[in-house]
């Protein structure tokens, strides 16, 4: 209870014309009132810190164990300066920049994010964030339906099952039918023949992921484009790969989605992430989410503001292009800072290192009796499928005993892939990490 003797409080009550704070709640019917919240009373900072420290100590971090997990969230090097900048309270304690004049910092930083990602993806416009890669895909499907007025959306089997579920939920509302296109069992790439069969006049859009969920680089992308023709082409990317992989804009993508978590955002046990959403100029007005535009102030000086707000829910309500309101702006700023720090040459190098390391690790695993890696005969980015003649449960348990977290298991969601796992490696793995894995696997045979 607020101290009723506080003279300031008394004065405020007097100004309002009530005799107690309780009076301000007199409009709340007795029948809906509660006694109190059944929670402990408030604690001091130190006690709370100690309590949470004790809880969190039960976690193992990627500094404690060697982890080969990827599958949508990646452990990449993040320069400390990224945290310094997004730790600036003018950024992190600000609201959506509704008052442009007082918010140029955030607006310019987001414009820079949009610009950097536009360059990476080859799109004209990138919005200032979606929740994550999965919802960005969902929004892309909706946008395709909106633009095309057609009823089917084609997506590859080689995406993460969670993404598929999200896509499903996002498509439900507008009655979009989802069609899954298979993959080539030998090389893990999209099954072009199957794709050809699925595309028809009802196709609102086609989604391809590059690299796909198996880490495979879809290098027959030109043929995909050929097959789908003028149908809206949505491409999902791992943005780190774009340091050396062709920009989707250069192979015909209309919409690009993905998750920019790898660009300067920690794994955080799953979130926040950073949904990338970009498109060609001609589709901009149908885009979901916030966008920042370059403009002028009353003195003719360059300035920035939110624009195309008439697409958004706070203006357009039920006719908005999306319901998104709060997004992941601060993560977008982190990504802008990250890309500025890593730079052109750094990003190229990082992408190349990821490919090199993954290839080398796959080869080493492949050299062990009873293991095959990569399972698919193709170029990979930083992930690849490992298959084994051993029971993967046994393998994982063995690795765990050695402080190693193996890749994510695939069997449950890809029935055809028994005893397989998706392994990931990045520039953060020291040489010893690979050695430890190889040694542990060798012990199994």
């Amino acid at each position: 209870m607020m101290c009723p003797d506080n003279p300031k409080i008394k004065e405020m009550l007097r100004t309002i014309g009530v005799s107690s704070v309780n009076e301000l709640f007199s409009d709340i019917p007795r029948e809906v009132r509660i006694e109190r919240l059944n929670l402990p009373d408030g604690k001091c900072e130190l006690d709370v810190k100690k309590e949470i420290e004790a809880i969190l100590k039960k976690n193992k971090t990627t500094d404690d164990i060697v982890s080969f997990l990827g599958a949508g969230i990646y452990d990449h090097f993040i320069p400390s300066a990224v945290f310094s900048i997004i730790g600036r309270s003018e950024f992190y304690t600000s609201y959506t920049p509704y008052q442009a004049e007082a918010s140029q910092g955030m607006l310019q930083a987001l414009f820079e994010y949009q610009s950097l990602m536009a360059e990476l993806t080859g799109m004209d416009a990138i919005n200032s964030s979606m929740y994550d890669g999965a919802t960005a895909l969902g929004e892309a499907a909706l946008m395709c339906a909106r633009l095309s007025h057609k009823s089917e959306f084609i997506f590859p089997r080689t995406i993460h099952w969670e993404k598929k579920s999200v896509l499903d939920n996002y498509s439900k509302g507008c009655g979009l039918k989802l069609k899954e296109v298979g993959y080539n069992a030998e090389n893990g790439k999209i099954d072009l023949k199957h794709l050809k069969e699925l595309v028809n006049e009802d196709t609102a859009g086609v989604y391809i992921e590059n690299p796909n969920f198996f880490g495979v680089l879809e290098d027959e992308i030109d043929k995909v484009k050929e097959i789908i023709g003028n149908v809206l082409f949505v491409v999902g990317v791992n943005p780190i790969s774009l340091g050396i992989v062709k920009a989707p804009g250069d192979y015909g993508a209309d919409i690009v989605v993905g998750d920019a978590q790898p660009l300067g955002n920690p794994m955080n046990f799953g979130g926040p992430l950073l949904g990338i959403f970009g498109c060609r100029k001609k589709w901009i007005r149908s885009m979901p989410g916030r966008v920042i535009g370059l403009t002028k102030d009353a003195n003719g000086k360059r300035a920035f503001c939110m624009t195309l707000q008439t697409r958004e829910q706070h203006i357009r309500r039920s006719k908005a292009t999306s319901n998104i309101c709060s997004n992941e702006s601060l993560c977008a700023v982190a990504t802008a800072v990250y890309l500025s720090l890593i730079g052109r040459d750094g990003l190229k190098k990082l992408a190349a290192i990821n490919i090199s390391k993954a290839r080398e690790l796959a080869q080493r695993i492949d050299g062990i009796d009873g293991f095959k890696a990569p399972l698919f005969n193709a170029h990979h980015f930083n992930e690849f499928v490992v298959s084994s003649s051993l029971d993967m449960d046994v393998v994982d348990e063995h690795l765990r005993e050695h402080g190693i977290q193996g890749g994510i298991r695939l069997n449950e969601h890809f029935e055809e892939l028994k005893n397989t796992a998706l392994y990931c490696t990045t520039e953060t793995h020291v040489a010893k990490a690979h050695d430890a894995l190889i040694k542990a696997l060798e012990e199994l045979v």
Partner: protein
Amino acid sequence: MNYHQSRYDEPLIFEIEEGEPIKVPNYPIKDNMIPKNLKRKGLDIPTLSEESVVRHYTRLSQMNYGIDTGFYPLGSCTMKYNRKVMEEIAGWREVTNVHPYQDDAAVQGSLEIMYRLQRMLCEIGGVDAVTLQPAAGAQGEFTGLLITRAYHELNGEKRNEVILPDSSHGTNPASAVMAGYDVVEIPSKAGCVDLEALSSAVSKDTAVLMLTNPNLLGLFEKDVVRISKLLHDHGALLYYDGANLNAIMGITTPGKMDFDIVHFNLHKTFGTPHGGGGPGGGPLGVKKHLEKFLPIPSVEYNGSKYHLDYDRSHSIGKIKGFYGNFNVLVKAYVYIKLMGSDGLKEVTERAVLNANYLKARLEKHFDIPFKNHRKHEFVVDGSKLKERGLRTLDLAKRLLDYGFHAPTIYFPHLVEEAMMIEPTETESKETLDDFVDAMIKILNEDVELVKNAPYNTSVRRVSEVEAARNLILSMRMYEK
């Protein structure tokens, strides 16, 4: 007034002199790693030194208003102060450097935090189960509506209407449409739900009523029990938009008001920072009968270990990758621990006191429709400004010159030239008084002065018209 925001002629990151960038980890790179036709040609991003980048963004940050630099009376946004210890804890490696797919045994800490937060939110919301997955309030709404659909479908019903009051937040109708519903907007009466209008709107097609209480005018819907009963009698559900929870904690709960579904905006009520737009968190709570529809996984505790439970009979599946914005969840957990049962009630009391005090002081100078007490916010009618040739927008811009953020303006639509003001509990009387003084002073300032405001911000009034007319959303579009 002596305020001036920082001002730098700051170039775009693309326009800064290139320099020696930080090193990236070394590794021998093999050639021919990439299929020829996937080889990238150009990559037109700059290569800068760390010092250039840090100076650039430090300067930008100074050209940005945040709750740490001043008062943010944005109605409906609950811009409260964000405790620093929340940031500190959320920055620990045990929070940040953990992969969501690590073995359960290696993430007991994360799971325990989530489990406990679920329980705490159940208590605060008066509900039986909570999912932490939604990334924000709007996604909570969307999730709630998918659950509504699943619920009715399981009952063999095809209900296709969502009812909302006209004062509802834009995300409500937008979410409804995304979930495939038709929106039925009902008019307000004296700022509250018009029971008659509601009665005639409700039908066997009604899936759910979306409401927030207190509503966006800051008025408590006194008839909430009758409203609930009306909807439930028609087999419809009730959805509580949790954005205004800051006005009722410790006094009542959505569950107690008989709502079936409620979302929480962690970045409003629970003091996690807004981050210039996000990330936030929008956990969703439901009563028992809807639990089985919640997204997977939930976090469960078997008495000795925490685990992720994917086994939910009628789950709608996933509405987002992984388990939600975990880092934000940690902050909310810390917040609730710091506040506790007593503190949360004090939050409510002070938030309501502050709002009513501001209103009492302002209503001598401005039109403030509806005479009742408010809860945490209130709406000013700015139409009288027109008599002097001013608009609410002008007043808003002029406030920036005084070092204040402007209120939410032109919303809700049912008040003309609206200014929606929510002070929150973390502002002192002194700040509120200074704000009122500025508001009054502006009323008496030269009209031209006010119309051309602001002057003391890093740029002068920004042209949104120009931005929309000549659309430039990226450097690529700028250069072309």
